């Protein structure tokens, strides 16, 4: 089964590589620029999916990612303006993400509330707060600008695609790779997955289920804050109502499509990013005549397709959504 999935994954990889090579041979510049834009579209989706993975791997369903992104991007924006420092904006946004997460943990771990309701509360809270305090017409002091990595950025193709971005993008990559190794190769990851699959096994092995859940959900919140900061301080540069536009929900689909694996979710996000960047490029070229609205709905349509493909074929962490009762079983 697992080898089958791996094999299927490598087929996709091969197909994408071949297509890329072909396009690159046709027009190196355009291909490179499409990929590099795709990465900037993919990163926020991938990071948001990491939030979901961290929570669900530990057994907590988090449908409040959207709210976390919305509130933390909002905070990043206005704090950066007030403090005249994007770094402070970024740090306070991370703290906001952690606070949102702790609220989720409080509701679902300590109070054993229904986790769908807990996540919904986060979303409503974020929508309410951000609409209420929203003031138009503010400008960021500056943004996280492109900082090419010396040496690596001179590589053909990859240099432009991966190593000519801002600081938050690089942090994002480090976070995703760290999560991957952390989850599958460290004691912390083993415990996290055990807590998400079969909490009483972890408990009887001396691993505190609620502590693991609190810590992991908090880390997820910090990643959410990074994601919100990236969106506003590095990618877009301004904030308006409904700024995150459902990325937190798309992320859940990517998490499922990526089988709760950071690398899988990153690949899925990259696929989304490419589709969008590619569609944009086609529109600009005028190669095909698609109305911009269709390009706009692309991520949502793709979400539906992706979910339809993966539905029933993937297995979520067995204990997700269930509060843990000590001593039962």
């Amino acid at each position, binding site marked *: 089964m697992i080898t089958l999935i791996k094999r299927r994954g490598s087929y996709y990889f091969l197909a994408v590589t071949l297509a890329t090579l072909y396009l690159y041979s046709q027009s190196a510049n355009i291909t490179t620029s499409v990929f590099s834009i795709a990465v900037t579209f993919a990163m926020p989706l991938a990071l948001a999916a990491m939030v979901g993975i961290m929570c669900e791997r530990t057994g907590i369903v988090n449908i409040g990612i959207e709210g976390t992104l919305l509130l933390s991007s909002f905070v990043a924006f206005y704090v950066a303006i007030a403090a005249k420092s994007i770094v402070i904006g970024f740090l306070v946004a991370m703290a906001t993400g952690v606070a949102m997460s702790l609220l989720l943990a409080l509701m679902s771990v300590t109070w054993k509330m229904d986790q769908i309701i807990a996540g919904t509360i986060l979303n409503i809270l974020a929508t309410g707060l951000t609409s209420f305090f929203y003031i138009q017409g503010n400008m960021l002091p500056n943004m996280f600008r492109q900082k090419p990595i010396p040496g690596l950025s001179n590589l053909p193709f990859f240099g432009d695609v991966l190593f000519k971005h801002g600081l938050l993008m690089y942090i994002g990559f480090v976070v995703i790779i760290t999560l991957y190794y952390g989850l599958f190769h460290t004691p912390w990851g083993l415990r996290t997955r055990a807590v998400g699959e079969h909490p009483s096994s972890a408990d*009887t092995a001396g691993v*505190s289920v609620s502590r693991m859940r609190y810590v992991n959900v908090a880390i997820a919140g910090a990643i959410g804050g990074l994601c919100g900061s990236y969106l506003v301080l590095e990618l877009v540069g301004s904030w308006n109502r409904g700024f995150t536009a459902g990325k937190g929900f798309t992320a859940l689909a990517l998490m499922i499509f990526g089988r709760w694996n950071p690398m899988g979710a990153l690949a899925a996000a990259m696929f989304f990013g490419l589709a969008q960047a590619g569609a944009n490029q086609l529109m600009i070229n005028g190669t095909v005549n698609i109305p911009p609205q269709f390009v706009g709905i692309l991520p949502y349509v793709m979400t539906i397709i992706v979910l339809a493909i993966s539905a029933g074929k993937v297995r979520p962490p067995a204990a997700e959504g269930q509060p843990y009762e000590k001593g*039962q079983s």
Partner: protein
Amino acid sequence: MSALLEITGVSKQYPGVLANDNISLTVSAGEVVALLGENGAGKSTLLKAVFGLVKPDSGEIKIGGEPIVFGDTAGIISRGVGMVHQHFQLVPVMTVAENIILGDEPKRGLFINMKAARAEIIALSKRYGLEVDPDAVIEDLPVGMQQRVEILKALRKDVKLLILDEPTAVLTPQEIDELLSVVRNLAKSGVGIVLITHKLHEVMAVADRVVVLRGGKLIGTTSPKETNEAGLAQMMVGRSVVLQVNRTEAKRGGVVLEVKGLQVRDDRKILSVKGVDFSLHKGEILGIAGVEGNGQREFVEAICGMRHREAGEVIINGVATKDLDPHGAHEAGISHVPEDREKHGLVSSYSIADNLILNQFDQEPFAKGWIRNLGEISKNALGMVEKFDIRTPSASNTASSLSGGNKQKVVVARELSEELPVLIAAQPTRGVDVGSIEFIHNQLLSARDKGAAVLLVSAELDEILSLSDRIAVMSGGKIVAIVDSKGADRNYIGRLMAGLDK
């Protein structure tokens, strides 16, 4: 010498049940204490409290003279306590190695050192004679193998106090002998051991002291020297128990289930049932004897529609069935007591009442069209709880709140009550106390006498010998012999099981 474990005045109230009622007990180093009691007597609850998993309402528990803190399982483990849990505490999607090292992982830098873990586990399994494959995934393993993993997990650290909650329920007789000798050796080296089991001969074989619980109270202490199995049974149940089954001559009718050339693959896709033929008659019990892992599980699952048939025919009442799903098998007239009650027998989060009608939930009188008839469902539940002596304050409680043996009784009650032409019972008395074993045995015999064709699979050779009219011995994926149980020779069957004789 100070006691290793001191329990003083521990009580635990669950909604509607006083699971532990002012229990005091001490265990010293080098001593094997057997804890006996009916299903639901409160044995697991007491020992879970020792491991920090259950918070007693009152009383005190000390390990090595120091009181324990509820919830501090890590601390309790580090003080040298190991526990084998009645319900496996294994993560199904993880490997044997990952499960064993969980909570105290060998490291290299920041990462888990899987190589060291594997080596450690292989050494551990050699040391105790419990062989396991470190890289096998738990959910692919038969329960007996999972039990070994659970035991190794508890033995990994150098334990001072070892708690074994029904470790032998799913082991083969040979594995049990090995485990009991491990227990004896550990005791000799100064480890204190608490053993829960329903198998009285095991108690007679290893215990230094026997403590009996009934209805949450500690009602007596004895030792194997002062009593015998019948005496222990009487002490547990409070009445005398007939340990011998009274089996009358079977009134054998026509063939109900016929199996021809059945071949089945196991979870690893290896052919584990290699062509089985037999026929099962109305009004008889056919016992399948065999060492676990010789294809019995796969063979039963294939007949019950839980596993794909590679080849062969299953003919029920003269009708050849296609490769069925479980629902189809049930429709065709098969009821099934699965060997793994947690996984295939119950929906833990459903009420006991609902679990008792899982096989008939859409049929009259439990449903009228689309509407469930809750009145009938609860009436049925009350009847079953009474008849099968299921110990629970209310049938509307979830199945997860039942003690292990009472869960088993729920499954048996459900499958026996429907009275289908074929009954396949796999390990029907696993984890059940002696009093209830007697009852379930009588129920199986009365199902037979009412005309059911019963296929009994059991790892207990005694159970097979005492209940079966005919005995089929399975070895290496084949039925190597079918003998009449009248005058069947225990040793001969044992040799067949081991694959020694032809």
